[in-house]
Structure formats: C-alpha cells, structure tokens
C-alpha cells in the first residue's frame, strides 16, 4: 500500500515535470505506456487467474503435507516442480511461504518453493521466449532453478 503511494507520487511528479517541459513527448510516452499495458494485460489476467486456481486447489495444509520436516530430498524436488509452474508476485509468495511454514513445512523446502515461484515460470515461458528468444529464456530459467537449489542448501546447512 505504502509502496503504491510512493510509486504514484513519483510517477505524478515526473509526469508533471515532463508535461510542462514537452507536451508532445509526454503524450507519446503515455501512449507507449498504454500500449505496453495493453500488451501484457491478456497474459497478466490469465496468469493471475491460474495462480488463483492453483492456490485454492493446493491448500497450505496440502502443500505442507508434501514438503514437511521429514520430506528430505523428495520434498526439495516437489517444491522445485510446484514453484516452477508460474511466476508469482512476491507479495503473494512471502505470505504463502509464511502460512505453509506454520502448517509444518520445512524451511529449506519452503525456501526453494518461494525462490522458484518468484523466478521460474513454465506457464510464462512462451511470453519470455517472445521477448528474449528461446535460448536465453531457457538459460535464465535454468539458472534460476540452480540459484534456488543452492539457496535451499545454504539455508538447510546454516539454519536447521
């Protein structure tokens, strides 16, 4: 909420300054912003919908039972797979992670789940490919999986 207000304030100030300096450029900028928004909207709505559906089917207690304290390596693999389905915004990921820990999930497994949720997305891969090309999109997702696994390993060694 606060970050939203800050963002709106900054955007309004820059918009005002830009408008005073050059009306034509500002109009062009807003038109481009609108096109960008329009281009991501269909994917955005579908992804949000998908996440809503996934989160209501995979309840916190169900996820926790799959990746509980004794789930070990298999739990890590499951977390990686579940987390890699779609790119989820961080303001959903952290509260979800917190909830499933309270339901009894283990910390390294939750770490890999949260990290892959924020950085790896199979559903969004087609969109990513359109942007950067196939090879780069795959490489970026693979690197994010590696990062998440090492991160979970460090958490497992240091914190449990």
């Amino acid at each position, binding site marked *: 909420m606060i*970050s*939203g207000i800050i*963002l*709106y304030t*900054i*955007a309004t100030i*820059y918009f005002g300054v830009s408008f005073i300096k050059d009306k034509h*450029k*500002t109009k*062009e*900028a*807003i038109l481009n*912003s*609108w*096109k*960008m*928004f329009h281009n*991501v909207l*269909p*994917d955005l*709505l*579908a992804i*949000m*919908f*998908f*996440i*809503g*559906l996934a*989160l*209501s089917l995979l309840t916190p207690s169900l996820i926790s039972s799959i990746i509980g304290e004794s789930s070990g390596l298999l739990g890590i693999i499951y977390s990686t797979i579940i987390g890699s389905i779609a*790119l*989820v*915004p*961080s*303001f*959903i990921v*952290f*509260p979800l*992670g917190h909830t499933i820990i309270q339901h009894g999930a283990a910390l390294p497994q939750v*770490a890999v789940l949260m990290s892959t949720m*924020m*950085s790896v*997305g199979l559903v*969004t891969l087609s*969109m*990513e490919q359109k*942007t*950067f*090309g196939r090879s780069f999109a795959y*490489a*970026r997702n693979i*690197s*994010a999986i590696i*990062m998440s696994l*090492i*991160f979970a390993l*460090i*958490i497992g060694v*240091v*914190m449990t």
Partner: protein
Amino acid sequence: MKKLKRYRFFFILLLGLLIIAFINQSIAMKTIQITGKSILDMLFLLPPIFILVGLLDQWVKKESLIQYMGEKSGIYGVFFTLLLATVAAGPLYIAFPIAVLLLKKGASVRYIVFFLGAWSTVKLPVLVYELTSFGSKFTLIHICFGLVFYYLTGILFEKIYSKQKLIKYDITKEV
C-alpha cells in the same frame, strides 16, 4: 477476433472455473477471491510503473543510459541496476518489457541478467514482510547469495549472448 484470441487462456481458465463451480462451490469462491484480489493489486501497482517506463523511454538519452548501465559502467551499473530492479513492485514478467527497453537504450547484457535476477530476489516493498516472517538470517542469505549468484550469471551470459540477438521484440508495438 484477433483481440479475443489473445484472451484465449483467460477464457479457458474461466471455463475450468465454471466446471469446478459445479463440483465444489467453495473452491470456486476461493479462486474468485484470490484472483480478484491479485488482479486488483496489479491494476493498482502497474499504471505508475508503466508511466515511468514510458517517460524513461522518451527522456533518457541513449548516451546517458550507456553511462549508467553500459559495458563500462562498473560499480555504478551495479547500484543503478539494483535500484531499478528493487523499487518496482510486481511479478517478474513485468520486468521483461522493461529489460528489453533498457537493452535497446544501451544497457549491457550483464546488467540485464542482473536486473532480472535482482527483480526476482529483492523487492523493497515486501522486504519488511520477509524480515518479520522469516528472520534476518534467512533474508540476508537470500539477498546476498541471490545477488552474487545473478551477477556472476550476468558475466557468464554476457559471453554467450550478443545484445543484437536479444532485441527482437518491440514493447511499444501493437501485437
């Protein structure tokens, strides 16, 4: 018709929801609740981000962006990229069009990879939440390891991918 086709996944999911609603109403209600809330959150957060990106595109000259995020920007580039990546809210796919814009303006591949990595690791708007629910040790490991890892990935990717190859798609063009 072409416009509707872009919403096909949305409609497929809507159909799925209708089927679920017949089987189990409480799951369907929950889906609508979660989806509605996240769509509203997004619609609230996105307009200022896109306006800022639009203005950045019009006002920031290529030469100055090269100075901040180009190949020779050094430690400056790290801080500038970090700032850009962590202040904005939103999921990673919002960062894709922004990354392309930065690439076109002359940012180097290394900082673009770092930008995407930092975006998915550190978000200032939710940092406080991470600290309070997971503790400072967890948060510190997450951020420090993530940033170092993605910076090194950036150096590696810079050797593999040429900038020209990555700029294929124009975010401001109608698809």
